[in-house]
């Protein structure tokens, strides 16, 4: 099982994901897309998919290839699918962005790029879903957090199916039915992607990682099942109910209100579960990753409150951009960056020192990181995200660009820390590379 414990390409997924994140942040700082352009404008779609597919989905896939086998105690169904999936997703995303640029008139005609992109992306995601799904299936019946991952994968399929429908429709091949879905169904796609795939999966993964790194007892299975039931209901109502409403030409209002109610219940239940993990932890001192994850949770709570306030004042539609920004960058990206910081150090340790254990003195995982330095970048990151959200709410486009520029800088700072970890730059001699150990490669793991 030694060889099977490290996923070879997880680091490559992380590297590509972070590259997309920095590119998207830099484009926002340059004033590309929302808020200078409309939320639904082609330029905005470019940024949205760089963040949703390039950054968040890629990072999540990379983490799941490593994490799902640990979760279920069985090796990955087939490691050889990881790299082709990465190539397909990268090619598909590139084509999708090009297609959006055609749509916005920035590139000459070539709308066929959209269905091509959808096909490549669907193929890539299908490999990921099949590989992870079959891994969980090997260990049936699935345990606790594995259920969240399964619900996330089902939502991913729904997201991709809807996105593929949009792509065909936008390229003029969709027919009348798909046109109807495209006209009003974009929120379903966004909810299935951000809410179902990314949020439910992140929740499941966070249960396990938090209990592992804080030595807290696992969340009671009954409680986490209730959380998942509420979350699945929210996504199920939004997508299935939404499609039904579109078919019946009934308007999405009631369906989305019901989904929002389930969504709020999910956040409240999840908040209860996470609070219990922090409260019952046996390790009193928090590491940087668990401290920063808490800012991600705070952002999720803030997003829920913001959503309630916007709906109550009837201004949700006007501020959906600010809301989505806080969800994507405060909650999802904040949590993923915090966890990456730990996972990279942990995997780098395993790769370099695991095989030497018992033969040579080895450093600790914490010796691979310099939390003091990194915490400054994280602080700058979260402050700029919250500032960016506020500037969107108050319609200050130029302040937003400044905030995005600071986010870019902070992310680059965090990346530099990750690279130092990979290079073992902070490990003191003589423990750094004793005889018989090999330095890790930056972009993939030796297994």
């Amino acid at each position, binding site marked *: 099982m030694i060889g099977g414990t490290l996923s070879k390409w997880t680091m490559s997924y992380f590297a590509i994901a972070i590259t997309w994140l920095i590119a998207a942040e830099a484009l926002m700082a340059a004033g590309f897309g929302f808020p200078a352009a409309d939320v639904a404008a082609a330029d905005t779609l470019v940024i949205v998919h760089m963040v949703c597919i390039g950054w968040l989905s890629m990072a999540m896939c990379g983490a799941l290839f490593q994490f799902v086998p*640990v979760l279920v105690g069985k090796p990955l169904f087939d490691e050889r699918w990881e790299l082709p999936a990465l190539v397909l997703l990268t090619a598909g995303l590139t084509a999708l962005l090009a297609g959006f640029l055609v749509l916005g008139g920035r590139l000459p005609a070539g709308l066929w790029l959209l269905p091509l992109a959808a096909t490549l992306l669907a193929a890539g995601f299908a490999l990921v879903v099949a590989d992870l799904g079959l891994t969980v299936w090997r260990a049936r019946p699935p345990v606790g957090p594995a259920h969240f991952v399964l619900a996330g994968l089902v939502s991913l399929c729904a997201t991709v199916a809807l996105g593929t429908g949009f792509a065909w429709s936008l390229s003029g091949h969709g027919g009348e039915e798909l046109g109807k879905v495209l006209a009003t169904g974009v929120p379903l796609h966004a909810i299935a992607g951000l809410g179902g795939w990314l949020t439910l999966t992140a929740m499941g993964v966070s249960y396990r990682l938090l209990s592992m790194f804080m030595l807290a007892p696992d969340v009671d299975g009954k409680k986490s099942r209730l959380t998942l039931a509420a979350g699945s209901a929210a996504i199920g109502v939004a997508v299935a109910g939404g499609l039904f409403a579109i078919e019946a030409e009934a308007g999405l209002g009631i369906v989305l209100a019901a989904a929002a109610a389930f969504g709020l219940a999910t956040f409240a239940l999840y908040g209860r579960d996470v609070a219990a993990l922090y409260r019952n932890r*046996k*390790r009193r001192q928090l590491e940087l990753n668990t401290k920063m994850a808490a800012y991600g949770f705070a952002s999720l709570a803030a997003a829920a409150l913001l959503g309630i306030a916007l709906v109550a004042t009837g201004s949700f539609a006007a501020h959906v951009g600010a809301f989505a920004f806080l969800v994507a960058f405060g909650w999802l990206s904040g949590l993923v960056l915090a966890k990456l910081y730990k996972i990279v150090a942990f995997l780098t340790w395993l790769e370099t020192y695991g*095989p030497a254990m*018992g033969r040579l003195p*080895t450093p600790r995982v914490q010796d691979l990181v310099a939390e003091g330095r990194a915490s400054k970048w994280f602080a700058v990151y979260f402050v700029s995200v919250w500032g960016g959200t506020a500037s969107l709410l108050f319609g200050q486009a130029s302040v937003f660009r400044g905030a995005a520029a600071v986010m870019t800088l902070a992310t680059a700072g965090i990346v530099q820390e990750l690279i130092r970890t990979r290079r073992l730059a902070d490990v003191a001699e003589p423990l750094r590379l004793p005889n018989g150990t090999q330095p890790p490669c930056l972009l993939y793991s030796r297994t």
Partner: protein
Amino acid sequence: MTDDLVARIREALRVVIDPELGHNVVDLGFLYRITVDQGDVRIVMTATTKGCPAAAFLREGVAASTAQVEGVRSVDVEMTFDPPWTPSCIEPAVRSSLGFANVN
């Protein structure tokens, strides 16, 4: 003679640390049982978290460093999570330095 070998094995195992907690498996109380029969060593040990990828390396590490001890003919290491490890297994002197609440 047997007790002496067990003591030497325990001493040797101080080089194996839990990468997360940064202390050796002896002080952390990961070693539940070490039995020796004419140089054939059997170790029953645990780790903090079931399914953690580090657990496999810990097991290998314990086997490797035991094998180097003079007088050891063969090593068999079993990983168990029953009973589960709790911070109360840690040597008291190490426990507070790790930031564990003493009540646990």
